[in-house]
């Protein structure tokens, strides 16, 4: 089932907004994480972890879920499909993996934000800035972005089969009309 053009444009706008917002949220998280690692001021480090906790739960998580949902709508509501092309399939798998890792990781972030509030000196700086997850996450999101913009060619076996089915079905439809 393909969406009519006005609905498709609305869904595309929503999907781009949420996806770019997700990227921006991770960049903000990473920036604050760098501040948490580099700052010598205890208050700054504690504030950074509080901000990371809030950005994670109230910006990145909702944007990730919305991006995943609108991505599903865009793929299933257009001729691209979800499993027909390698770029849509890989984008979908990477988005699901990123979202799952994010949801599993956020309780750790809250734990560390709590810990930072009551820590001093060396223990506070041992907490670090969670740069591994945010850095790797940003790389994965950029890969998804590149796949979505360039749309490299390549049909999956499922896509090839579906396309052949449509080709064999369409002459019969044409003859009937």
């Amino acid at each position, binding site marked *: 089932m393909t969406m009519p*053009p006005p609905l*498709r444009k609305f869904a*595309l706008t929503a*999907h*781009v907004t949420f*996806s770019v917002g997700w990227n921006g949220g991770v960049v903000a998280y990473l920036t604050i994480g760098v501040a948490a690692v580099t700052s010598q001021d205890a208050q700054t480090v504690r504030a950074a972890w*509080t901000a990371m*906790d*809030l950005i994670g*739960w109230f910006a990145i998580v909702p944007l990730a879920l919305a991006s995943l949902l609108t*991505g599903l709508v*865009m*793929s299933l509501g*257009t*001729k*691209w*499909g979800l499993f*027909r*092309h*390698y770029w849509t399939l*890989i984008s979908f798998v990477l988005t699901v993996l990123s979202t799952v890792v994010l949801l599993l*990781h956020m309780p*750790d*972030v*809250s*734990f*560390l*934000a*709590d*810990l930072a*509030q*009551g820590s001093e000196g060396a*223990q506070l700086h*041992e*907490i*670090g800035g*969670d740069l*591994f*997850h945010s850095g790797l996450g940003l790389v994965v999101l950029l890969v998804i*972005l590149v796949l*979505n*913009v360039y*749309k*490299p*060619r*390549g*049909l999956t*076996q499922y*896509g*090839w*089969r579906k*396309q*052949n089915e449509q080709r064999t079905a369409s002459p019969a439809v044409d003859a009937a009309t």
Partner: protein
Amino acid sequence: MSQSHVKPDHDSTTSTPPDTPRWVKVFGLVIAIVILLFVILLFVGGGSHGPRRHIPSAGAAGYTSPIAYGGQQP
């Protein structure tokens, strides 16, 4: 992020399934190498890769996330 001016592939006119594109093979190889490196790092790092690896086993007992307070600190 599908765009309307780019059309889906219509290059499969043969009776045999298309080969896996080279870019997919390269991509798969890169992912396999990254996963392998990650597993090696997990073993080297003692099975933990998260930020909690830096934290002493004392934990954070007695502290509550700002999330639990709706953004307000206790």
